[in-house]
């Protein structure tokens, strides 16, 4: 048993942290997320130059061949600094899906462009009415001569406005709730038959509702009627990433709140002198550590056989959701009125943690999934 990082991993973590400390302080973040784009193209370029976009990509496609643990190191630091660039959508989801379901030609065509920062992707999976259940996908893929077209509606597609390609989960066969019959279809994000309604989300990210009306499909990733095994694998890897992002945010909240409790004085002494505050901070710490443990477990199991991988991911997602809520809410509470202000980072972390809970299914959803997976 060994939870030590390798020398390379330590170096990576340190260099990410030092770049973020230098370039990504909270005041800059506030300005950045208020721009139209919601992030900086310049930062994206730097991330490409530093090789971060290539970390989880295979070496034969211009990547660094890093595993889920390397992605985890990055995610935790991105969580701590609330990095707004679409790393998750493009590198973890987009490249993840191409890698898991695409053929060699597709991989050589698209992955290097992602690694170089020249191409951005988004994953359209959610639909209104299906809540978090991906088997209830109603967006239809219809065979049209040699190709396919898509019709239907996707909601809350993170980072679609800045993406040039969309991977759309759509039904080519089967009934409305069958897990079989679903495929991954690549479309041009601003192509014909794609009508986007872009908006800002509560955590200051960008998302879109997208109406597809006979949108021409550029390519199909894998079997057009049997994509779910690949989708589930990628989502479980994505959960490992999100769990670490959440750990970064929670750890930052705990540190900030602890520091505040030591300095904020009421009744002639620091509020951290009061047992009620002490116990709350201890409970927060235990939540952060539990989430950290399961984030690590889900990263280490990201390439395991499906059931083992799924159980670890589901557990991490449940923990992320519950811990994130508790830590976020208590950080606001202990900061009192200050915690309620937009100008403090505390509320922003809380909002981000809520969105991490929701994305790909909340704690209840994954608890049920965990139970259904059995022993």
């Amino acid at each position, binding site marked *: 048993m060994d939870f030590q990082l390798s020398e390379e991993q330590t170096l990576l973590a340190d260099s990410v942290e030092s770049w973020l400390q230098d370039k990504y302080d909270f005041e800059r973040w506030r300005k950045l997320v208020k721009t139209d784009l919601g992030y900086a193209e310049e930062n994206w370029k730097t991330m490409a130059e530093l090789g971060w976009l290539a970390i989880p990509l295979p070496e034969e496609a211009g990547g660094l061949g890093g595993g889920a643990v390397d992605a985890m190191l990055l995610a935790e630091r991105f969580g701590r600094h609330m990095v707004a660039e679409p790393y998750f959508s493009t590198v973890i989801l987009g490249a993840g899906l191409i890698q898991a379901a695409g053929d060699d030609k597709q991989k050589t065509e698209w992955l290097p462009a992602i690694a170089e920062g020249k191409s951005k992707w988004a994953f359209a999976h*959610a639909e*209104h*009415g*299906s*809540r*978090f*259940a991906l088997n*209830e996908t109603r967006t239809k893929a219809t065979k049209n001569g040699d190709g396919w077209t898509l019709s239907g509606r996707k*909601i*809350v597609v993170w980072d679609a406005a800045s993406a040039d390609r969309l991977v759309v989960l759509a039904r080519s066969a089967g009934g409305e*709730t069958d897990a079989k019959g679903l495929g991954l279809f690549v479309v041009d994000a601003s192509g014909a038959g794609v009508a986007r*309604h872009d*908006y*800002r*989300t*509560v*955590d200051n990210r960008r*998302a879109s*509702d997208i109406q597809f009306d006979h949108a021409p499909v550029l390519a199909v990733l894998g079997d057009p009627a049997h994509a779910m095994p690949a989708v589930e694998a990628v989502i479980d890897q994505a959960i490992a990433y999100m769990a670490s992002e959440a750990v970064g945010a929670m750890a930052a909240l705990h540190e900030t709140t602890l520091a505040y409790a030591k300095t904020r*004085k*009421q*009744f*002639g002494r620091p*509020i951290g002198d*009061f047992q*009620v*505050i002490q116990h709350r901070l201890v409970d927060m710490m235990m939540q952060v550590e539990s989430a950290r443990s399961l984030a690590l477990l889900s990263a280490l199991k990201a390439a395991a056989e499906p059931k083992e991988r799924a159980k670890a991911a589901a557990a991490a997602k449940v923990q992320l959701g519950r811990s994130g*809520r508790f830590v976020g*809410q208590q950080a*606001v*509470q202990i900061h*009192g*009125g200050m*915690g*309620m*202000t*937009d*100008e403090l980072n505390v*509320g*922003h972390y*809380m*909002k981000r943690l*809520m*969105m991490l809970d*929701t*994305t790909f299914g*909340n704690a*209840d959803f994954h*608890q*049920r999934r965990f139970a259904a997976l059995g022993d």
Partner: protein
Amino acid sequence: MDLEFTADERAFRDEVRTFIRSNLPPALAEKTRQRIHLDKADFVAWHKILHAHGWGAPNWPKQYGGPGWTPVQRYIFDEECAASDAPPLVPFGISMVGPVIYTFGTDAQKQHYLPRIVSMADWWCQGYSEPGSGSDLASLRTRADSDGDHYVVNGHKIWTTQAQHANMMFCLVRTDPDAKPQEGISFLLLDMTDPGVKVRPIISIDEGHSVNEVFLDNVRVPKANLIGKEGKGWTYAKFLLGNERTGIAEVATSKQRLKRLKEIARAEQACGRPLLEDADFSAKVAAVEIDLLALEYTNLRMLAAENAGKGVGPEASMLKIRGSEIQQNLSELACEALGYYAAPYEHRPDGSNQPPVGPDYAQGRMESYLYYRATTIYGGSNEIQRNIIAKMVLGL
């Protein structure tokens, strides 16, 4: 023991219901349903409608311009207003400073201010908290120095709700820096239009503007604006906090929020069925409904005691604790019910032609969740409320 309202109380309920039905503008009700932050004009509009009917100060005795209702009638009134999505009454005048003025004020203060509160000619705000004095309010440092027949006030108030609308502030100031903390405090009525008053907005995590900082720089306040005796301000402040204790549970509002939550959960689908039929989600809704039922009847027990002329003691702090926790829980469940549609956060201006993102019932739910995080902080944080119960009720 009798759980039913009397015939008179039922008749009163019907009267209130009929009045609201025929006088509350539907657009205002719709806005109240969707928004946490209403505009000044919205609050004033509803207040003027009530005032024209003689209900401008529902909680006041007749002699000062109120309708002279019993606590049970006030409860019925609150229930009916919330059930119709009427805008909440602005508490600073009618619930906070008004009773202080008619209990401790001079005749001149009563004659000048009370009618203006009932008609909402003045908009009041509460100058209590300071940057260094939140939970420990008695440590406040804003000072009022005597200068002939005036006080000269200097200091810095914070979390002042709706100060941007206010032309008057009631505030706690230190008139005797040498006395023990609670004994050197006085209660002053201050004109916000004085040139020494500066209001700076604070944007809260829901991105709304309802709280402010207020800077007081050599503000001259006539001594005629002192309430009661100099140095007795803490007594009046405690009276104010203890007044209307049974209202702080927000039972009526929460019942309405529970109804909305169920509407959302009926409309949202999970596994091809309404979310409200989902085992996990319906259990959560049931749990908060039971909490609310327990709070409602705890509140009614205290109300009945108040109706019988028995004062309600510090045990009413539990109404604030449970009430705020339930409000938070309800607002959180509403966001949870929305699934992905909790995420969009766009502020559409009034009358915007842009369609909202997601279903209509999603509008304002996240805003409400975020703003309600403050309910366990303001009005004496829940930690402080528990201290009060431990000390005053349990003798610990």
